[in-house]
């Protein structure tokens, strides 16, 4: 069964990079440009993992995470935060609230993949 990943990232070039790397590994990736659309997609697809950028227009990553955690159906889906290093502290807070992991930009695509694999492997 192909594992589904929702990627919320407002930067198309970075989204493309991630999508490329993950698809190459066989994951099904749904990319959304902002939090609101990402949330809709998550509700529709019920993905196995969510990659969530924090700084996004319309609805930021925190808000998405908060709403996910309020939803009984969605709150068990693991979330990996994507963030610039300056917001690291906030990410730590995010993890305290319920994020599974985080990865700081810039990142090595292979590292991203490794983390995704680890989380999905664990949940499986």
């Amino acid at each position, binding site marked *: 069964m192909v594992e589904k990943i929702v990627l919320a990232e407002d*930067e198309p*070039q*970075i989204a493309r*990079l991630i999508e*490329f*790397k993950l698809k*190459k590994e066989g994951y099904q990736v749904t990319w959304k440009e902002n939090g609101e659309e990402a949330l809709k997609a998550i509700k529709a697809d019920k993905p196995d993992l969510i990659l969530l950028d924090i*700084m996004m227009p319309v609805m930021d990553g925190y808000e998405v995470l908060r709403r996910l955690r309020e939803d009984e159906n969605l709150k068990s889906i693991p979330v990996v935060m994507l963030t*610039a*290093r*300056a*917001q690291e*502290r906030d990410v730590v807070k995010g993890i305290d609230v319920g994020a599974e992991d985080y990865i700081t*930009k*810039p*990142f*090595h*695509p*292979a590292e991203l993949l490794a983390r995704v694999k680890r989380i999905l492997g664990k949940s499986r």
Partner: protein
Amino acid sequence: MKNKSTNHTSITRKVMLIGIGLGALWWIGEAMVMVWVFHEGNLFQQIFLPSLHEIWMRSLPIGFFIMTTVYIVKRVKEALVQERKLLETLIDNIPDLIYFKDDKNRFISVNKARAKFSGAIAKNMIGKTDFDFFPQEQAKEAFADDSRVMESNRALLGKVEKITDADGTEHWVSVSKIPRHNDQGRVIGTMGISRDITEHKKGEKKIARLNAVLRAIRNVNQLINKEKDPNRLLQGICDNFIETKGYYYVWIALVDESGIFVTSAQAGLGERLSSMLDRLKSGQIVNCVREALAKSHIVITDNIRDICAECFLLSECKGRDSMTILLRHGDKVYGIVAAFVPMGVTMDEEEQLLFQEVAQDIGFALWNIEVEEALQKKTHDLSERVKELNCLYGISNLLEKEDISLEEILEGTVNLIPSSWQYPEITCSRVILDGQTFQTKNFQETTWKQTSEIVVHGDKAGIIEVFYLKERPKSDEGPFFKEERSLIRAIAKLLGEIIVRKKLEVELRIKEEAIASSINAIVLANLEGNLTYVNLSFLDMWGYVNDREVLGKSVTEFWENREKILEVLKALARGKNWMGELVARRKNGSTFDVQFLANIVENKAGKAICIMVSAVDITERKKIEQMKDDFVSLASHELRTPLTSVGGYVKLILDGDVGEISKEQREFLEIVSQNTQRLETLINEVLDIEKIESGRVEIRQEKVNLSGIVGDCINTFKVMAEGKGLKLEKEITAVQMDVLGDSDRLSQVFSNLLSNAIKYTKEGRVKVTAEIKGRFASVTVEDTGVGMSQDELGSVFTRFFRSEDSYVRKTTGTGLGLSIAKATIEKHNGDIRVESKLGVGTKVEVILPLLKEAKKVD
């Protein structure tokens, strides 16, 4: 005997008178017969005839007359002999010395008394002179007197002279010498009567003595009334006793309550008394004094040896009587008075009584003086105290003047001092304080100096000095009076207090000014939270014109969020200070941000007095901070996004995700990737240090095991070190070194240090030591790297510092690592130190306060 002789004389006289009477009667009868015959008849007849009858008749009375006469003469003669015998008996037995001398002053006759006086028999003295019986001088005088009486033919009456009897005893006699005459009235010798008046003389002497004693007593009484100085009084008393010649030697010794000698006076012996006075002064009580002190009555001594065999008076007063008696009044004993009488005088009861009375009078006088002195002293003390108070009051009064400076007070003080001293006209004073001198116009240093230190807060701040320009008139108590010594101390103390107060005033004024003119808004409120003071900045910031608009209002009324300020007040009520940011509301309703500090002001005793609030308008700062934050977010986002793309895609290619690449392509893409990495590090570090130093980074306060963090870091860098062929040694002596802090930040610090050490070491080792040093945890990273020069060491913590060393230059680095480390460690209340030697190595030590006692490795 005398009476009998008188009887004889009277009988003889009666017989003679009867005879003469009868004879006379007869002759009267005869005459009458003859008158009748002539008248009647013939003369012849008449004459003759009766003649015979007549003759008989007439011879009868003649015979009778003759017989009677013979009888009478015989009786008279008998009576005369009788009389002479009586006279002789009388002369012989009379106690007066009677003698008769011839014209050659030879004794013709002496009575028994005279003979006895010379120890001779009366008849043996006949023909001898006074030279045979008296000492030469006395004999000469008697001889001269006798001769003078004869020459002048005039009696010498009642001459008093001293003569010596056969025993050698001297007698006072009253001598009368009378010239003797023969029938022709020629002087043929002398007769003398001497009466022994020795006893009388003695009586006279005694009366003279008593007179002298009385005179002395009278003088003493006069002295007692007018002399108030005890020493002069005692001396006067002694002198009087001696001057009136009543006594040979008088001395008075005064003792205190415990019998210790105080003072003495004496007259009559002069310097000879000094040896005894020395004994008394040295604390010895001589026997006679002790004796007198022990007895309440007069002590009469007729032999001084009986009392004190060693008394120096033995020779002086040998054979003299002495009296010693207590001087007292009521129960109070003052001492003794002793008197020795002149030689040969015995004191009788009368004199003793008089002496006792005098002693009582002296005792009373001493008591009187004592009482008066006490009174005078009290009066003097009182007046001194008034002076003292006046002076201190005067100085205190200076303080009342508004805006008077300390200098003016000191100037005033030195001028107030002399008038409070005993002799203002010869007194001057000076105050030296902190190098400044204040003195009276007449100031002059002399040897009569009195000083007291002015102490401020326990330290000597200055000195106050008082000088007498010359020696003061009375100087029996050192140059200054006790009262003056205490006064100068009191003034010094007062000045010390004034200085403290004045300094406080000045400080207070400065503080007041500082508060009033502070750009911070400063507010004081009472413990209920109502404003009591606001400064100008407060009025400006909150848009008020006058402080009357706000004073008395609650401190809670000036804020946007009332609840928050109530929390602040609650915190204050719990005794905590509160610091933070608040939104303030102006008079016109607009708001602004303030940095707010509220604290309870306590007095020295720790009691809360009021609330103090200071507030700074941080609107501008807030704006700048916001801009900075915005910039940081922007920078981190906008810089990282392209970097993420560049780095990510390069790595994608390098990882072979998009197909095979040639060797050159790989090499060049590696260069792109490395530089992307470098740029990323630089951006991260710049942002980091900015955040740490601006305090906008929150350092977590958690229990962190430093040993664990260091261990983890070492493990992380093992590969890097081994890759360079370096040995990475660790020496962690404490498994548990708990500190309070942020593990991520601390981890970053040690990573930086290790990374640096490995980077800048070509060969050798890097050693990490973690140990406990007292109350601190110490972590040392030591390398055998390139090291730094002293110059470089000085700027090692400055931003973007990089060593000039070519090797270092070649390595990658931002030069921010140590700056971040220092900022982080300081945020943790720790310290970071660097030691380095060019070409030898560098040692960096981080010290952090331990949370509690840590466990050591066995």
